[in-house]
């Protein structure tokens, strides 16, 4: 294999630790990923040597901080093939990015009763609730795509669901529970026919596969730093510049203004218009370092590694008696996020027993209760992989599941 997973792992200090007397087997990267030394170093270096506030200081530290912050923006723009760094808005996380779209694009669209927003049953709560709130505020109607039995978006009623009344479609690029990677080309084409905007929740895709916003042809994407080797507290909204330029602000305050009098305010151009207040500076710089790290390895190579791991995991888990996998059963069109049920055992109990042997998985509804409901379960166990995941770790998971069956058998 050309992808040297051992060398990658050596960059992640946390992977050396033990949990409950066993080597850590971290299978929860869809929840939050681990950070390499390079990211931790970049943040430490910033805080130790260059800390100052951005976009407002004439002094050297402030200038250095501003330069580093804007360099991070440029790196992220290049990473997703954005037209210009000004299309990158730094936010707290994907949730804030999606709320920003719902709020500001919602206002720009002047939604009213009779208008429709379309989402899907596969969404994380962060791509459901902001749209419910928007519909409550405006009287617009929320509609959604269903999920097929094999865990794909059900596009059978696309032409009816996305129609002349549709103003915006917001769907997930890669499901955080089923692992499905959605080919959104049909949705985008239909949205264009009826003049609707398209937003894509890329929280799970940007960290794991090459994403080209111009290639996708969408209007907005949202993603978060901590799922792609970066720190918490930093996320990204990408939007087409001409749309951002037309959108009203989300939060008001410092940095987002052009001029302020006691009577009225005019707003700065994007992205500053949407970055009120002092941003998470060290975190943005950390995310820039994470993007450098991912780019040096190559997103295509990372994706291929995860495809190999996923194929191995699908095979290994299907050999464990009593395990039922949700979502696509083959690696095609799916990423390295694998949710499953263990017959007769509640996911919390599965997770607890796995933790006792150092295997860290996520259990629960994964902030996607409608997806769980679609498959008739209140909760799932989810193992999710990343560039540092090994086949040995999948074997450890399988051994853990044998242990689960022993305790509950």
């Amino acid at each position, binding site marked *: 294999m050309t992808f040297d997973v051992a060398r990658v792992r050596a960059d992640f200090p946390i992977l050396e630790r033990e949990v*409950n007397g066993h080597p850590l087997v971290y299978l929860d990267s869809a929840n939050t990923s681990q950070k390499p030394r390079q990211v931790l170093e970049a943040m430490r270096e910033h805080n130790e040597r260059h800390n100052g506030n951005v976009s407002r200081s004439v002094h050297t530290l402030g200038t250095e901080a501003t330069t580093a912050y804007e360099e991070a923006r440029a790196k992220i723009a290049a990473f997703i093939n954005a037209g210009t760094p000004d299309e990158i808005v730094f936010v707290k996380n994907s949730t804030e990015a999606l709320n920003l779209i719902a709020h500001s694009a919602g206002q720009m669209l002047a939604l009213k009763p009779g208008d429709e927003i379309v989402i899907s049953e596969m969404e994380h709560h962060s791509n459901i609730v902001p749209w419910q709130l928007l519909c409550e505020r405006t009287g617009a109607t929320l509609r959604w795509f269903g999920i097929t039995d094999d865990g794909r978006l059900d596009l059978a009623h696309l032409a009816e669901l996305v129609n002349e009344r549709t103003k915006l479609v917001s769907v997930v690029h890669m499901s955080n529970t089923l692992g499905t990677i959605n080919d959104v080309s049909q949705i985008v084409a239909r949205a264009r026919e009826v003049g609707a905007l398209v937003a894509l929740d890329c929280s799970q895709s940007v960290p794991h596969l090459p994403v080209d916003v111009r290639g996708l042809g969408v209007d907005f994407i949202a993603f978060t730093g901590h799922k792609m080797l970066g720190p918490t507290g930093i996320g990204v909204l990408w939007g087409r510049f001409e749309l951002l330029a037309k959108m009203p602000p989300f939060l008001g305050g410092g940095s987002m203004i052009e001029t302020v009098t006691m009577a009225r305010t005019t707003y700065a151009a994007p992205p500053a218009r949407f970055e009120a207040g002092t941003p998470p500076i060290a975190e943005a710089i950390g995310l820039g370092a994470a993007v450098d790290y991912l780019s040096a390895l190559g997103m295509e190579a990372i994706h291929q590694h995860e495809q190999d791991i996923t194929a191995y995991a699908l095979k290994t888990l299907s050999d464990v008696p009593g395990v039922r996998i949700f979502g696509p059963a083959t690696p095609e069109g799916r990423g390295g996020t694998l949710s499953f049920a263990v017959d007769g*055992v*509640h*996911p*919390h*109990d599965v997770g*607890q*027993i796995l933790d*006792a042997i150092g295997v860290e998985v996520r*259990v*629960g*509804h994964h902030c996607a*209760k409608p997806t*769980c409901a679609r498959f008739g379960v*209140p*909760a799932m166990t989810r193992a999710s992989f990343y560039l540092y995941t090994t086949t040995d770790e999948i074997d450890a998971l399988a051994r853990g599941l044998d242990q689960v069956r022993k*305790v*509950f058998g």
Partner: protein
Amino acid sequence: MMLDALYQEIILDHYKHPHGRGLRDPFDGEAHHVNPTCGDEITVRVASDFSDISYDGLGCSISQASASVLHELLVGHSAAEIAPIHEAFVELMQGRGQVEPDEEVLGDAVAFAGVAKFPARVKCALLPWMAFKDAAARAGVDVGVSPEVKA
């Protein structure tokens, strides 16, 4: 191993063979509680004289076994008898593993002593007990002071 403290044989027995499970009529008070972080759910019904306590739910072994133990311990007792048991169980669960349970009072519920060492699971064990307290209140019966449930 730490896990043995959590998954006591008694707990697994109650999980696999629950006592008094299933919602029954008649009843005087009903409460439905959900653990918002994990989605575990329970519905508890009580007769005001506690001649029956019935329940149904979806959840992990800890929450479901806890409901079964609650049924076994409390059904047929008076409010005055129930209050100290309820209080002792809540105290045990919030004791971070430092409280020595009294088997005279708690019966099979002493098996939950180990759960108190797993902060993430304390809410699972308390879920049926909080729902029970609410259901009793709706039946017009007070079974003791409302404890503060910490995450």
